[in-house]
């Protein structure tokens, strides 16, 4: 079967490309696509401790993909070819190889859409189901199977799906992972009920149900010389309800999800049910926006294989409540969602001081404030003498609204940006972070990190299309790797050329031998949708996170080339 799939796709596309030449299809048929090639050439580096042995002869590594979509009227089909030869340092070694992990055909017939093959889907906020891909992380949990979308009436959207999830290159066969089934309904009340069409209040309701079937595994536990057999469920269900209410500039969103007991390697095989709540309220008008969010996650890891502990086979998604950091030193301590339990709050404010006002200046000034605070949930022993999280038990009891210990993460940042003249702009930023490196990075016993970061980002335009940008960043902390300073210069000639040099210097590292410069030089050329970039330098060890999912990036020294194009 595995061999047949590529043959089938090649055949399909040969057929389509053949027929596409004929008159009837050129009128309507379209082929679009995109490619990307990321290559790295690695070199030894005594200071970083990278030896010939570490490189193991794999001096050049590459990740690449080619994506093709064929569209003809209501029909769409496509595939993605991927190659990791071998995967770039930091990506899961299980990716080594190449093939076609993604292919689909889709047909829209009036109000019904059917997809067979691979697809990405999200129910609500993803608390019970989300399949997605993130190339930079090497994350892909696409579902292979079938999906139907149906719109029976104006404002009513129904979706149903069944399939198995991608696990690197390992094909699905009986019992090596679960079969995921799901159903979702969404109701836009203002569109359904004619009387509400003109109403200022918009209401959207939704609900989802997901079930994962996994062949029951044999698992035993020996305690006091007695052997216990785990009674593991073969079907694990989860459901969620959500609402969204909009009134003028006000908006309220909430979703609650519940999952029945799902003992797994992720939660140390406890039998507690899981739940999560995500709520957000915001208000905005022109020039001002504020949003407040709250979240509670309790034992909500939901994977389609109960023994999996890596970043794979996730059925659901739990968004982190932190502001993503875009400046490099502010991104040294990123937050990763803790699926076994966390409770957190976030606030974000954006304000534009009007132009031509005393404070705002000629072009206006923008202010952004972010605050997040995240803790463990409250966890109490289920019975005397049984420690919290003991395997084979109900795990713990938890007060829904209580804040537990320890603190996982806290951040406050303020960003001011102002254009002073046609030629000069400046962004100033201050970030304060408290980071539980023990929990988030698994560095057992390391103390909490407290970091202060200051950033200045200045842009000067010599001509309308030639500009020089300068960044200066400084991070102060007494913990972990100590203080850092960073400088960057970027010269651009719009819209085609980019030249960048930067250096991150870890001058405060308590280990004198590790007080290193991480320098880099890069250039990029853009032509339409094609981009080629080449860089040389040192890469600092750290975490690369997108959407609360992280990948460890090892220290490296060498050349990187990226080619990307779409048509």
């Amino acid at each position, binding site marked *: 079967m595995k061999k047949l799939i590529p043959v089938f796709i090649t055949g399909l596309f040969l057929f389509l490309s053949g027929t596409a030449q004929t008159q009837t299809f050129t009128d309507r048929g379209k*082929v679009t696509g995109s490619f990307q090639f990321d290559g790295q050439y690695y070199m030894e580096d005594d200071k970083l401790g990278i030896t010939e042995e570490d490189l193991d002869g794999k001096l050049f590594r590459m990740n690449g993909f080619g994506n093709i979509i064929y569209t003809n009227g209501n029909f769409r089909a496509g595939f993605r070819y991927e190659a990791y030869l071998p995967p770039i340092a930091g990506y899961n070694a299980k990716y080594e190889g190449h093939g076609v992990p993604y292919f689909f055909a889709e047909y829209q017939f009036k109000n019904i859409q059917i997809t067979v093959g691979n697809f990405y889907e999200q129910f609500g906020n993803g608390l019970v189901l989300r399949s*997605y891909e993130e190339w930079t992380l090497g994350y892909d949990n696409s579902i292979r199977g079938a999906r139907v979308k149906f719109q029976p009436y104006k404002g009513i959207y129904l979706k149903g799906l069944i399939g198995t999830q991608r696990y690197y290159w390992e094909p699905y066969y009986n019992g090596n992972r679960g079969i995921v089934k799901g159903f979702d309904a969404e109701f836009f009340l203002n569109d359904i009920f004619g009387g509400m069409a003109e109403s200022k209040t918009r209401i959207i309701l939704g609900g989802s149900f997901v079930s994962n079937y996994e062949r029951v595994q044999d698992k035993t536990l020996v305690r006091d010389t007695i052997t216990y057999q785990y009674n593991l469920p073969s079907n694990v269900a989860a459901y969620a309800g959500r609402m969204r209410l909009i009134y003028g500039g006000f908006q309220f969103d909430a979703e609650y999800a519940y999952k029945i007991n799902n003992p797994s390697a992720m939660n140390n095989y406890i039998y507690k049910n899981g739940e999560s709540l995500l709520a957000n309220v915001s208000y905005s*008008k022109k020039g001002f926006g504020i949003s407040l969010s709250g979240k509670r996650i309790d034992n909500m890891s939901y994977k389609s294989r109960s023994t999996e502990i890596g970043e794979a086979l996730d059925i659901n998604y739990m968004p982190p409540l932190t502001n993503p950091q875009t400046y490099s030193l502010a991104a040294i301590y990123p937050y990763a969602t803790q699926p076994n339990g966390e409770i957190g709050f976030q606030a974000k404010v954006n304000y534009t001081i009007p132009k031509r006002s005393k404070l705002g200046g000629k072009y206006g000034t923008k202010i952004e404030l972010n605050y997040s605070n995240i803790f463990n949930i409250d966890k109490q022993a289920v019975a005397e003498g049984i420690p919290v999280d003991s395997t084979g038990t109900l795990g713990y009891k938890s007060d829904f609204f209580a804040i537990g210990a320890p603190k996982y993460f806290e951040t406050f940042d303020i960003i001011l940006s102002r254009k002073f003249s046609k030629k000069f702009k400046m962004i100033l930023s201050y970030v304060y972070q408290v980071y539980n490196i023990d929990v988030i990075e698994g560095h057992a016993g390391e103390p909490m990190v407290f970091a202060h970061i200051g950033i200045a980002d200045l842009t000067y335009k010599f001509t309308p299309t*030639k500009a020089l940008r300068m960044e200066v960043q400084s991070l102060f902390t007494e913990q972990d790797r100590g203080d850092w300073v960073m400088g960057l210069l970027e010269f651009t000639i719009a819209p085609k050329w980019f030249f960048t040099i930067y250096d991150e210097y870890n001058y405060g590292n308590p280990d004198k031998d590790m007080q290193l410069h991480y320098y880099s030089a890069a250039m990029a050329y853009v032509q339409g*949708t094609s981009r080629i970039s080449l860089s040389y330098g040192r890469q600092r060890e750290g975490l690369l996170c997108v959407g609360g999912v992280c990948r460890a990036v090892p220290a490296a020294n060498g050349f990187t080339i990226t080619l990307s194009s779409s048509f």
Partner: protein
Amino acid sequence: MKKFSMIILALLIGFSVYSQDDKKPGQKLPSIDLQTASGEPFNTANISNDGKPIILSFWALWCKPCVKELNTIADEYYDWQEETGVKLIAVSIDDARSSSKVRPFADGNDWDYEILLDVNGDFKRAMNVNMIPHTFILDGDGNVVWQHTSFSEGGELQLIENVRKVAAGEAIDKH
């Protein structure tokens, strides 16, 4: 397997050459169900601007150059609209982490754009967007006539130059 990858490679190259020829009539937008920032269901096949040009810009809260590009255009947007009738649709690819913060962010930055939420990247994938910012110009009939990735200071000049040509019904240089 090796043979297969060679076939794929040949097809990819073949397709790219072929699609270049095919590009003349432009590419119409795929039909994807999204929501507007103010909670209305919206299908991307319905994107239109009464026969006038449209700028479609893929962005996210975490993308610094995207926000820079949209802020830069915001300073000129009124003049651009008056001159060419252009409309900018900013498609946010923020996921559930930030999608509910997109509207307050856009309002707080004083933007006048129409905002669409592509929370699971369906529209992004259908439009073959690899990296953001990725900006498209659509002509009055909804055909993609120009596209570009990345942004640097002054990049907006090329964008409006091309919008002017589209508004005047002139052909534009693809790159």
